[in-house]
């Protein structure tokens, strides 16, 4: 068995599923696991089965512990109660109409006459439009509601204690994200800048509902999120620039890995980006230490990394689609390609076309059951749509990246890239609309 991480990850995921299905107390899983670990350590000759059981137990333990709220956790406070909360803004606040929404990492709470240290994250809904940003330390007075939401009546119920707290690198990344968004808005229309922001920065909030709807119907909504493709573009560009600058091979890989981590933070570290970043880091590290990287092991590593931090992600649709689509491409594409090779002569453009179609088909075959289950949609047009949409999305993403960089170096050229992006987004939407109108393109049930 040359892929130990794959087996251990499957066992870890099974443990998470098990603990969700059966409400087992923490110690009932922990003690047998400690016993198994002791057995492995004593008996020097490690048994494969014991290691798999240990990974299974770890999955279950991680999930139980993740849902075990600390005694001081803010969500242990009574619902509908009025609290005074002190904490740090964790992301760029979103402004919707006259309301500001942002996550707040809680440090202390005061209820009645007692103030105490606390932890947890609250989603703050504040009436008003303050100029808060990531890292601001605030004191707020509001009402605690369901789903970790706190409503704050007005700006007079908020005081900013200090600025610039939080993780320095994330602060810089969020600043870069805001600046990039501003540049996109400056050179393109609101629709195009919304599409560019989604594709380049992972900022999906401003996408109009009709565009999102259209993409869902044709099964191409995946292009509106930052994923492995964008991570690939960033690593390729950085590696190319460093190679042109004659930077040493090892240094080149280390700088690229640092840039990828920065890009991951810049895009808000969503599941597909984290997955793609870990896979890319795994691959680049493999080259760095001169070991052949394996895609299954790197995919498992990415899944383990995400699940260790948040085991609940296993049941998240974004996580499932992200991993299933990559797995489907990795498993199905070579098999389909081999099968097709018997009947078609693949060379030049024909090869490119058939390969694109097969990759799209593999991803669709892998994800269609999940999409049908979650969204009650079955889109046979997806395979055809991806043939047109993916190359266009590639061009739009490249245009977006270039627009941000060019507007920094030579702002006068920004309009050229902006206009190109406008045209490409227009074509993208027209093609999507035409494909969505085809008979039997999308079946809803």
């Amino acid at each position, binding site marked *: 068995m040359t892929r130990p991480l794959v087996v251990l990850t499957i066992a870890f995921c099974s443990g998470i599923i098990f603990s969700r299905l059966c409400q087992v107390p923490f110690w009932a899983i922990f003690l047998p696991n400690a016993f198994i*670990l002791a057995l492995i350590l004593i008996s020097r000759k490690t048994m494969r089965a014991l*290691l798999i059981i240990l990974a299974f137990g770890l999955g279950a333990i*991680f999930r139980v512990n993740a849902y*075990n709220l600390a005694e001081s956790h803010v969500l242990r406070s009574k619902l509908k109660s009025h609290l005074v909360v*002190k904490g740090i803004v964790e992301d760029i606040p979103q402004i919707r109409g006259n309301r500001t929404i942002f996550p707040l990492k809680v440090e202390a709470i*005061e209820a009645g*006459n007692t103030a*105490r240290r606390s932890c947890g994250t609250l989603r703050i809904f504040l009436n008003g439009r303050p100029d808060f940003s990531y890292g601001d330390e605030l*004191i707020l007075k509001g009402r605690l509601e369901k789903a970790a939401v706190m409503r704050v009546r007005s700006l007079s119920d908020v005081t900013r204690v200090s600025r610039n707290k939080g993780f320095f690198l994330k602060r810089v990344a969020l600043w870069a994200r805001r600046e990039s968004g501003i540049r996109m808005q400056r050179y393109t229309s609101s629709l195009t800048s919304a599409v560019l922001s989604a594709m380049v920065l992972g900022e999906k909030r401003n996408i109009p509902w009709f565009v999102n709807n259209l993409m869902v119907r044709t099964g191409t909504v995946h292009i509106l999120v930052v994923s492995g493709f964008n991570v690939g573009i960033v690593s390729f560009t950085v590696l190319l620039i460093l190679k042109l600058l004659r930077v040493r091979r090892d240094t080149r890989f280390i700088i690229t890995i640092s840039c990828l981590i920065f890009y991951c933070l810049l895009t808000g570290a969503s599941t597909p980006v984290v997955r793609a970043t870990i896979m890319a880091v795994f691959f680049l590290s493999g080259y760095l230490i001169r070991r052949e990287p394996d895609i299954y092991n790197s995919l498992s590593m990415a899944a383990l990394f995400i699940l260790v931090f948040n085991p609940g992600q296993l049941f998240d649709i974004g996580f499932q689609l992200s991993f299933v689509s990559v797995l489907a491409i990795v498993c199905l594409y070579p098999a389909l390609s081999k099968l097709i090779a018997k009947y078609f002569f693949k060379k030049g453009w024909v090869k490119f076309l058939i390969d694109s179609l097969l990759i799209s088909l593999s991803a669709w075959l892998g994800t269609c059951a999940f999409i049908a289950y979650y969204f009650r949609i079955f889109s046979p047009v997806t395979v055809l749509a991806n043939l047109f949409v993916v190359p266009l999305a590639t061009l739009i993403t490249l245009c977006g990246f270039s627009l941000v960089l060019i507007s920094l170096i030579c702002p006068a050229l920004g309009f050229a890239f902006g206009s190109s992006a406008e045209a490409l987004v227009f074509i993208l939407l027209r093609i999507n609309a035409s494909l969505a109108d085809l008979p039997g393109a999308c079946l809803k049930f």
Partner: protein
Amino acid sequence: MFSLTRQERQVILFLMATALFGTGIDFLVKRYSPERRIPSFGQNIGRINLNTAGPELLEELPGIGQKLASRIIEYRDQSGGFDSVEELKQVKGITVYRFEKIKDSLCIK
């Protein structure tokens, strides 16, 4: 086992052991750590500072309209600011009843 070298096996076992015992300790800390009291920090949150509030903010108080808000600001400008919340009673139109209704929403900084 899994075609791993001795060092790789040791690393995996070390990581698993650390994860297991780390989670156990984290579970205990979450469950049994005592409540850590701190000095009050939110006494004046949500209260309007009489020495800096503008007319719009003052008008949010119950029973205070445009006229009374401008009288409060006028008094503040003439006297050089309020020394205490009680001093608000000196403003013409602020009756005892009105003051009792709004005093908990005010502060002096």
